């Protein structure tokens, strides 16, 4: 009797895991392309009886080549370590907080690698504007009107509490004034920078 119960429990658990797998397994290798030919060649010489390991490019969906005419939309991937905030969504424009200043990216932008500083990221689609505050990261713009934005942390702007920002700003300013070592000073400076960026994002 107990064994049957266990069996039933097991079948149930496997079926649930299978459904989960189906839900998420869209990304894992679909084609059996061999990746880097030179690498596979070298591998076969050294370890003929082990299959060569996969490489990341085999898991990626191939991106389209650069179109000859200017596309009307920009394809944006906006990723965080714990989520893909936007994935292949087509928008009109994004404005990213590059270290050199706010940078607007439209379809057909020149290929760019931009370092990001804490600041406001806005995604424009028609009249709809989504605003995020991002901590820092990188933005890549490719020639095929693909933009990849990577950030360590991002929050929608409407979830930030202005009172807390003011409090944090005054706290870190105080810390900066009283800091004695270089490390303390640098930490306090970062705090001040982030909070003033938050402040200007909220007010501006």
């Amino acid at each position, binding site marked *: 009797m107990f064994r049957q119960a266990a069996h039933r429990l097991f079948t149930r658990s496997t079926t649930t895991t299978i459904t989960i797998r189906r839900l998420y*397994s869209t990304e894992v290798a679909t084609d059996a392309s061999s990746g*880097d030919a030179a690498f596979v060649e070298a591998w076969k010489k050294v370890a003929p009886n*082990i299959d060569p*390991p996969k*490489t990341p490019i085999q898991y990626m969906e191939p991106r389209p080549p650069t179109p000859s005419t200017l596309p009307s939309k920009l394809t944006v991937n906006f990723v965080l370590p714990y989520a893909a905030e936007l994935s292949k969504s087509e928008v009109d424009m994004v404005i990213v907080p590059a270290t050199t200043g706010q940078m607007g990216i439209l379809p057909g932008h020149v290929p760019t*690698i931009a370092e990001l500083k804490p600041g406001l990221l806005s995604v424009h689609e028609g009249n709809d504007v989504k605003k995020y505050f991002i901590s820092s990261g990188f933005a890549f713009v490719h020639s095929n009107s693909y933009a*990849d934005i990577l950030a360590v942390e991002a929050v929608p702007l409407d979830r930030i509490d202005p009172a807390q920002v003011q409090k944090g700003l005054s706290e870190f300013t105080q810390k900066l004034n009283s800091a004695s070592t270089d490390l303390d000073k640098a930490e306090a400076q970062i705090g001040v920078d982030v909070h003033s960026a938050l402040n200007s994002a909220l007010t501006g």
Partner: protein
Amino acid sequence: MAMAALRREGRRFAPLVSSPNPINAIRSTLAPAEEQMGLGVRSISTQVVRNRMKSVRNIQKITKAMKMVAASKLRAIQVRAENSRGLWQPFTALLGDTPSVNVKKNVIVTISSDKGLCGGINSTSVKISRALHKINSGPDTECKYVILGEKGKAQLIRDSKKDIELIMTELQKNFLNYTQVSVLADDILKNVEFDALRIVFNKFQSVVSFLPTTATVLSPEIVERESEAGGKIGDLDSYEIEGGETKSEVLQNLAEFQFSCVMFNAVLENACSEQGARMSAMDSSSRNAGDMLDRLTLTYNRTRQASITTELIEIISGASALEG
């Protein structure tokens, strides 16, 4: 009814437990049963089989519990691993994938688990690392290991002790988050000189299958070299670079960020594969224990029946001898 019979049986064999050589009774298997029939009791002992059944049942309980634990951990970590998959893709789109790049200082980062009983995932990543080591070590190139996890360390320290640069363990003691992994990546970057980092891990595909994978991260100098001389990442030169004082500074930041992102995904994928592999390993061992238990139960019942039959025959023949 059956339980009552068993209890009666137990009472009947109770004196056997305190037989002259109880240790022997536990140690021996079924074969030397005649030895234990001392004191005029002429039946076959079932004590040994019962002990064995008990221990098998306990093992089955343990493996079942481990399977359940692995299943629940898997569910939590699988979501996180799948969410982190977007993180490395922009880098591969930008810098391409260069497993065959030929550089002087190679470092292989082997990711393994801290705990065992999880099928073949650790030996797979060790095997892959060894082969990569063979490919990349030559007369004018050198190849070192950085090992994450207790089990990879145990296997690689045997034959390539001199090549191990850095060992990190107890990775999964705390909750795996990006901050923790980036501190770890920072440690590796600070302590190890490299031209190319080759990260070996098991990518999670499903509960029963995982794909050994190697991701390559190049140092900023090599990125510059490869993009200039018409190398493997040829189109990086067409990109405009915003921010930072110089191009090399931005590339340095980029390489470090790339390493932490790739590591984050790799560590999560490997942890996920570990739980999946453990789950299926524990499932098959509880099934094996069940099979064994069935066989033992059969043996036990057969022996019991035989001893009852013998006793009956003795009684009947004794009675008929008196009558006759």
